[in-house]
C-alpha cells in the first residue's frame, strides 16, 4: 500500500515537472520569436508614421526603440519620431480645376532629416520626405530681381524625365540678397529645450555650436536673450546687445540637459521677453531649438498655435531649429514655424549649422516679402491635366489668393523657392481614378487661342511692413524643349524631385530610378562650390545600396 501511494505520488511529481518544463520551453520560444520579428520590421513598415496621437505612437513604434537602445541612447526617449501624414497631390484635370493655388515654403528640414537617415544607414519613412523641402534645400542660379520687386520670378518648361509623355514646369523665385550690414536690427530670443532628452552629442552640444555661429554674425545693433525650458522654465540671459559675446557664450555653455519638458511655460516667457525688448521696424523673433519633445499637454496644442498666431500679428515671428533623433516631433515643429511666419531647419551636423544659421542667416533675420502666394492658371487648350509636386500642406483655396487676411509663407533675404508641376499635354487622358468622364465640358484644343501659352503664373506678396498685397503676373510659352537642353536649374530640381518620388515610393514615380537621378544631377551640378550637390549625389548612392 505504501509503495503504491509513493508510486502515485512520484507519478504526480513527474507529470508536474514535465508540465513545468513544457511551459518554460514554450515561453522561451515565444520570447525568441518576438525579438527576431521586431528587428526585421525596422525598415519596412510605413504604417507606424501615420497621423496618430503621441500616446499611440509611443506604444507602437518599438522598431525605432530597438535600434536606439542598441546605440545607447536615452531609454526614456525610445518612442518614435512623429511625421504628419502626407497624401500626395493627385493629377487634376484643367477642365475641372484650371486654377492651382498654394503658399510658398522656404523650409529645408526634410532634406537634412532624410540625409541623417541615409547617413545612419536607414531609409527614411516616406512621410518624412517632403519633396518641396528637398528641392528648396539647394541654391539655383536664378537672377537677382529688378524693378523694385523683392524677388525675381523665373519659369521654364521641358519634357518630364520620369514620364516622356508629360512635361515639367518650374517656377522659381529668387529673393533679393542683402548684406548683413543692411539688415534691420534684430531682437532675438533663443528658446532652448534643455530637458533630459537633449542630453546627447547630436543635440545640446550641437545646439550650442549652432547658436555660437549665429551669434557671431550679429552686431552691436542686435539683441539676444536666452530662455530655457525643462521641468520649469527660466530667463537664463536677459536681453543683451549681441556684441557682448562673452556673456552670451557663457550663458550658453553653462546649460545642461535634465528634467522633463514643459514647453508651454517657456514659450510664454520667450514671447514676453521679445515683447519687452521689441524693436520697431526691426526683426523681432523667437528662435526655438528643440528635439521636438515639446510637451504642452494634449489639450493645449490648439492654444499654443493660437498664441503663436496672435504674436505673429503683433510682429514677433517664430523660427524653429530641430535637433537629434529618436523623438523628433517633425510635424509639430513644421506647424509652429508655419504659424509663426518663420522657417524650420533641421540641424544634423556642424556643416548644416554653418549653412542654416551661418551663410543663410540673412534669410532667417530679414524677411523681404511676406504672405507670398502663387496661383497658376492653366490653358485647357494646351494642358489636359497637372500635378503640383509637393506643397501638400501649403495648398490654398482659389479664393484665398486675393484675400489679404489669409496667411502664407515668407521669403527671407537670399532665399530661393522652387515649385514643380508635372503637366499632361492636351490630347492625352488624365488619370483620375474613381471619377467619371465629363460629357458637357469637353474642351477641344485650339491652336489659335493664346497659341502655345501653357499657363499664367500670378503671385501676391506684401512688403514686410504693409498689409496690402501687390500682384505680379507672367506667362509661359511651350517651346518643346527636352530635359537634356533645359537649364541646369530645371535639370537639377527635376533630379531632386525624382529622388523624392523614389523615397516616397510615390504612385506617380513612373520610370523614376536612381541611375536617372544621378545622371541628371551630374549633368546639372555646375561648379558646385559648396559641394552640396555632390553630397546629394552621394546620398542617392547610399539610398540605392539600402534599397
Amino acid at each position, binding site marked *: 500500500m505504501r509503495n503504491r501511494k509513493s508510486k502515485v505520488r512520484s507519478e504526480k511529481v513527474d507529470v508536474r515537472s514535465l508540465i513545468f518544463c513544457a511551459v518554460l520551453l514554450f515561453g522561451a520560444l515565444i520570447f525568441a520569436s518576438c525579438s527576431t520579428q521586431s528587428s526585421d520590421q525596422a525598415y519596412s513598415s510605413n504604417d507606424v508614421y501615420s497621423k496618430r496621437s503621441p500616446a499611440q505612437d509611443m506604444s507602437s513604434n518599438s522598431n525605432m526603440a530597438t535600434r536606439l537602445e542598441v546605440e545607447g541612447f536615452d531609454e526614456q526617449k525610445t518612442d518614435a519620431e512623429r511625421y504628419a501624414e502626407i497624401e500626395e497631390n493627385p493629377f487634376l484635370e484643367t477642365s475641372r480645376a484650371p486654377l492651382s493655388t498654394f503658399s510658398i515654403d522656404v523650409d529645408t528640414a526634410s532634406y537634412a532629416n532624410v540625409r541623417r537617415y541615409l547617413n545612419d544607414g536607414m531609409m527614411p519613412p516616406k512621410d518624412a520626405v517632403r519633396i518641396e523641402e528637398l528641392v528648396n534645400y539647394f541654391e539655383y542660379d536664378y537672377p537677382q530681381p529688378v524693378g523694385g520687386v523683392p524677388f525675381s520670378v523665373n519659369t521654364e518648361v521641358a519634357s518630364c524625365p520620369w514620364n516622356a509623355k508629360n512635361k515639367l514646369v518650374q517656377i522659381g523665385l529668387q529673393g533679393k540678397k542683402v548684406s548683413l550690414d543692411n539688415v534691420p536690427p534684430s531682437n532675438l530670443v533663443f528658446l532652448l529645450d534643455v530637458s533630459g532628452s537633449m542630453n546627447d552629442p547630436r543635440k545640446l552640444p550641437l545646439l550650442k555650436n549652432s547658436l555660437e555661429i549665429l551669434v557671431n554674425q550679429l552686431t552691436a545693433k542686435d539683441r539676444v536673450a536666452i530662455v530655457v525650458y525643462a521641468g520649469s522654465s527660466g530667463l537664463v540671459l536677459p536681453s543683451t546687445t549681441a556684441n557682448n559675446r562673452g556673456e552670451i557664450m557663457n550663458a550658453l555653455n553653462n546649460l545642461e540637459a535634465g528634467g522633463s519638458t514643459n514647453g508651454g511655460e517657456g514659450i510664454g516667457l520667450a514671447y514676453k521677453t521679445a515683447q519687452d525688448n521689441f524693436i520697431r521696424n526691426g526683426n523681432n523673433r523667437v528662435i526655438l531649438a528643440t528635439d521636438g519633445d515639446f510637451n504642452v499637454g494634449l489639450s493645449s496644442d490648439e492654444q499654443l498655435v493660437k498664441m503663436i498666431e496672435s504674436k505673429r500679428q503683433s510682429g514677433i515671428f517664430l523660427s524653429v531649429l530641430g535637433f537629434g533623433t529618436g523623438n523628433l516631433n517633425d510635424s509639430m515643429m513644421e506647424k509652429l514655424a508655419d504659424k509663426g511666419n518663420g522657417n524650420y531647419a533641421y540641424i544634423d551636423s556642424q556643416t548644416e549649422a554653418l549653412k542654416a544659421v551661418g551663410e543663410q542667416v540673412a534669410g532667417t533675420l530679414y524677411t523681404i516679402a511676406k504672405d507670398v502666394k502663387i496661383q497658376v492658371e492653366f490653358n485647357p487648350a494646351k494642358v489636359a491635366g497637372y500635378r503640383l509636386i509637393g506643397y501638400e500642406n501649403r495648398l490654398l483655396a482659389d479664393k484665398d489668393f486675393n484675400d489679404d487676411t489669409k496667411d502664407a509663407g515668407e521669403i527671407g533675404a537670399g532665399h530661393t523657392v522652387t515649385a514643380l508641376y508635372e503637366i499632361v499635354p492636351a490630347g492625352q487622358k488624365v488619370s483620375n481614378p474613381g471619377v467619371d468622364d465629363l460629357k458637357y465640358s469637353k474642351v477641344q484644343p485650339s491652336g489659335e487661342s*493664346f497659341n502655345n501659352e501653357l499657363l499664367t503664373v500670378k503671385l501676391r506678396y506684401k512688403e514686410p511692413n504693409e498689409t496690402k498685397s501687390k500682384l505680379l*503676373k507672367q506667362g509661359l*510659352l511651350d517651346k518643346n524643349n527636352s530635359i537634356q537642353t533645359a537649364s541646369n536649374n530645371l535639370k537639377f530640381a527635376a533630379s531632386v524631385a525624382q529622388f523624392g518620388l523614389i523615397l516616397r515610393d510615390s504612385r506617380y514615380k513612373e520610370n523614376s530610378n536612381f541611375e536617372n537621378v544621378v545622371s541628371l544631377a551630374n549633368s546639372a551640378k555646375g561648379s558646385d562650390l559648396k559641394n552640396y550637390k555632390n553630397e546629394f549625389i552621394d546620398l542617392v548612392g547610399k539610398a540605392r545600396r539600402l534599397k
Partner: protein
Amino acid sequence: MIKHLTGFVIFSFIVGISAFIACFFYEIPSSESVFVAQEPIRVSSKRSCGKYKKKHKRGALTDLKLKQAVFNLKTKQLDTNFVMKRKNQYTKGVSIGLHFFAKNASGTRYVATIKFDLIPVFDDYGVAEQDISSPVWFNSLEDYENVYVVPEANYLQNESNAPVFDEANAFSVITIGKNLD
C-alpha cells in the same frame, strides 16, 4: 560758259575723289569723354567708309540674353537685366532692340519696340551684364494679356520690316498690374 562748267565738274570730281581717298587714311574723331577705353586706342586698319560703318554698328554683339524684364503698368516703367557677348575687340557702342508682343485669345499682337544705345563694360571674356530702367509708353494692355519680349542684338532702327514674333527667343515679361490689384 561750257569751259566754266567743265572746269567746275572736273574740280568737283577731284574734290570728291580726294575725300573718298581720305577715308582710307583718316579716322573720324569721336567724343572721348563718353567712352572709357579698356585697352589703348589704336587707329583702325584701312577700310572703305561703307564697310567700316557696317562693322562698327552691326555684328558688334554675338549674343543677347534677357535675365529679367519687369514692366510696371502703373508707373509705365520697364526694368531689365540682360547679358551681352561682343564679337569685335574694340566696340565703342552697341545697339539693342526689344520688341514687345502681347498674347490674347486672338493670338499674338505686336505692341512696341524700344531701342537702346549702350556703351557696356565687357569683361575679359567679352561678356557684359547690364541693368536698364526706362519709361515706356505701350499701347494699352488688357489685364488678361501676357507680355513677351524678343531681344534683338545689333538693332538698326530704320529697318523696314516689322518685327516678327520669334517664339524660340521670346522672353516672358513680369507685369506689375494696374487694374488687377
